[in-house]
């Protein structure tokens, strides 16, 4: 079951909130440079799965290996691992009291101990990569939603993560701003980033995902290449979920 070469290897993952079983034994392996797209109804446990993968949620049971390191081992330095796992949130979560550049360089400086000049150089490069070279000194509130999300992506990218987790990165955006964020994600994928993306952007999934995973009620119902899952879904639940979306 477990795959030694996987960048992310989740096995037997269980998580409950009180009596509510949110993840009921998830097995998911993501290869280096793979883009795995996770879809499923609201409340099916997609966010919880992603949040377990950097231990923002504490799993009850199972194993999560990132680049071969067991996250749930108490001896694992979780802060060091989190630097290797980029996370992008639906609500951006930029630090409102800091400039965009400081948002990007904070962890470089305080967690990695890089000097001001070096952090600035890395931060500016990351911001240039997401098309925000001219916004380094702006505050988050001065940016559009799409720009804020790209800045948040730059904040994660600047740490040179091994894998990036996206939790509905475009759901909070006006439709006309979605494209710029997806373009940045596409560029990351082309540069070889390993990515797990929870999203409802089915068109993006169709042409950018290597694999689509459909989750329902805390379990993976089916998975496969996008053309298979979208074109010929095996399970009734997948079909009805996709039908709701097409409508």
């Amino acid at each position, binding site marked *: 079951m477990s795959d030694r070469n996987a960048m992310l290897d989740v096995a037997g993952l269980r998580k409950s909130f009180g009596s509510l079983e949110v993840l009921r034994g998830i097995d998911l392996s993501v290869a280096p440079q793979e883009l795995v797209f996770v879809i499923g109804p609201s409340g099916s446990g997609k966010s919880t799965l992603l949040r377990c993968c*950097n231990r*923002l949620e504490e799993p009850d049971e199972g194993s999560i290996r990132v680049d071969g390191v067991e996250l749930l081992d108490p001896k694992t330095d979780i*802060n*060091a*691992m*989190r*630097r290797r*796992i*980029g*996370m992008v*949130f639906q*609500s951006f*979560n*930029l*630090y*409102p*009291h800091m400039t965009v550049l400081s948002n990007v360089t*904070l*962890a470089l400086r*305080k*967690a*990695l101990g890089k000097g001001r000049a070096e952090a600035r150089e890395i931060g500016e490069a990351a911001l240039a990569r997401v098309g925000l070279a001219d916004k380094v000194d702006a*505050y988050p*509130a001065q940016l559009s939603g799409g720009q804020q999300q790209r800045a*948040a992506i730059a*904040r*994660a990218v600047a*740490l040179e993560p091994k894998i990036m987790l996206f939790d509905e990165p475009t759901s909070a955006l006006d439709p006309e701003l979605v494209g710029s964020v997806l373009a940045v994600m596409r560029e990351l994928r082309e540069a070889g980033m390993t990515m797990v993306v929870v999203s409802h952007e089915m068109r993006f999934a169709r042409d950018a995902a290597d694999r689509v995973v459909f989750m329902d009620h805390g379990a993976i119902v089916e998975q496969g290449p996008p053309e298979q899952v979208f074109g010929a879904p095996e399970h009734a639940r997948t079909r009805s979920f996709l039908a709701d979306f097409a409508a």
Partner: protein
Amino acid sequence: MDRFADAFLNPAVIEKYLPDILRGMLVTIEVAAAVVVTGVLAGLLLASARSFRIRPVNALIVLFVDVFRALPPLVIILIAYFGLPNVGISLSGFTVLWLVLSLVLAAFAEEIFWSGILSIRKGQWEAARSTGLGFLQTLAWVILPQAVRMTVPPLTNRTIAITKNTALGAVIGVPEILMQAQTAQSFSGNATPLLIGSLAYVALFVPVVAVGRWLETRFAWGRA
């Protein structure tokens, strides 16, 4: 009118006791400044400690905060000054005044900082932690700068209210403004020193109120 002037603005009395009252002003400034520094810092430390959410620790913090917010400062001052020597702890009036007012300010400041910390969205913690910053680093660089900014108005108000309590030093022999004015009043049999004393308070606290107002406008943009 003459009787009024004689009772409250007697030139001879002013000349004789003004130096005492000015010395009292210095003492008031010293106590007030010390109280502001230790009280606000202690409040910030307590609120930070509380954010670790360790049950027994938080229960103690809440108990301390509730007690020191509930008791009138004068009561605590009297207990500390007249009661503590019975258990072998003798503190000078200055120390008691500073300590008690610092603790009272710490209690109020803790509540203010804590509600500031609570008002920061969970996503801020999560974003910072997800980049590998530790708990304390997140608190120091992400949470507190935002929380403190929001607490400036209530904190300045509370700080001013509590530093005015330095006048309570008069009951335990701290030679601050009120004590000096009262002594002068009883020696001279004239109320002039009390009026000079109140002018001294005005001279001291009006600038503090003004600075507080300036801080409020300065930090008001915080939640853009």
